[in-house]
């Protein structure tokens, strides 16, 4: 087996694994019980998208895709930070006592 053939097989297997993980994280986004679960799943979806971009950069032989990957990582980080601030502002219970929210607390189980 030549080295080029090995690289082709590795690219195909990596694409298949990334597609399966993309699907799993999409399931978590759909069923995620709280908003924080969905934000976390979107963050990991961005990292899987970076992996896709890296594989496509190697497969097409056009390495400038690494700039696209860096930009996507920056956008994903900023989106996660903004959504975390949004969760912090939105879901604070009445009276803003952390321990007093016992009856309203979610367990996080689906």
């Amino acid at each position, binding site marked *: 087996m030549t*080295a*080029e053939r*090995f*690289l082709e097989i*590795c*690219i195909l*297997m*990596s694409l298949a*694994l*990334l597609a*399966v*993980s*993309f699907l*799993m*994280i999409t*399931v*978590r986004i759909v069923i995620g019980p*709280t908003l*924080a*679960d969905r*934000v*976390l*799943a979107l*963050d*990991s979806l961005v*990292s*899987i998208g*970076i*992996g896709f971009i*890296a*594989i496509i*950069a*190697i497969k097409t*032989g056009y*390495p*400038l895709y*690494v700039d696209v990957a860096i930009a996507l*990582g920056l956008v994903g*980080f900023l989106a*996660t*930070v903004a*959504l*975390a*601030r949004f*969760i*912090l502002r*939105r*879901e*604070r*219970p009445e009276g*803003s*006592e*952390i*321990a*007093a929210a*016992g009856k309203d*607390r979610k*367990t*996080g*189980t689906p």
Partner: protein
Amino acid sequence: MMDIVTGILLLIGSVFAIAAAIGVLRFPDLYTRMHAASKAGTLGSGLMLLAIPIAAFQPDIALRAVAGVVFFLLTAPVSAHLLARAAYISGLVPGHGSGIDDLKGRYDPNTGNLSSHAESPRSSRKKVQN
């Protein structure tokens, strides 16, 4: 030779990515899911980014890829910590029903600051309320 190293890096990175995805799908709690997503996911995408300069073999691409990996390694813990802090303050209980909550009473509910000891006047007032 470079093709073999590139393929092995891609395979290891995608295995880490699918490990992160299995963790995100199967773990019972937001905080345990965050372990999988922020550690294994970052390592997977970083390894796959490091495969680009090995395949391309140009110094500018290598510099940009290494800068991108360093950027991801710096920002993933920050975003994970912000998300966990927001989820905790908004009332999501860690521990998945085990009742262990080491941060209980340590966050100032008005300012959001974290104190190192739980026995503050505010937390004792909370105990009286409960």
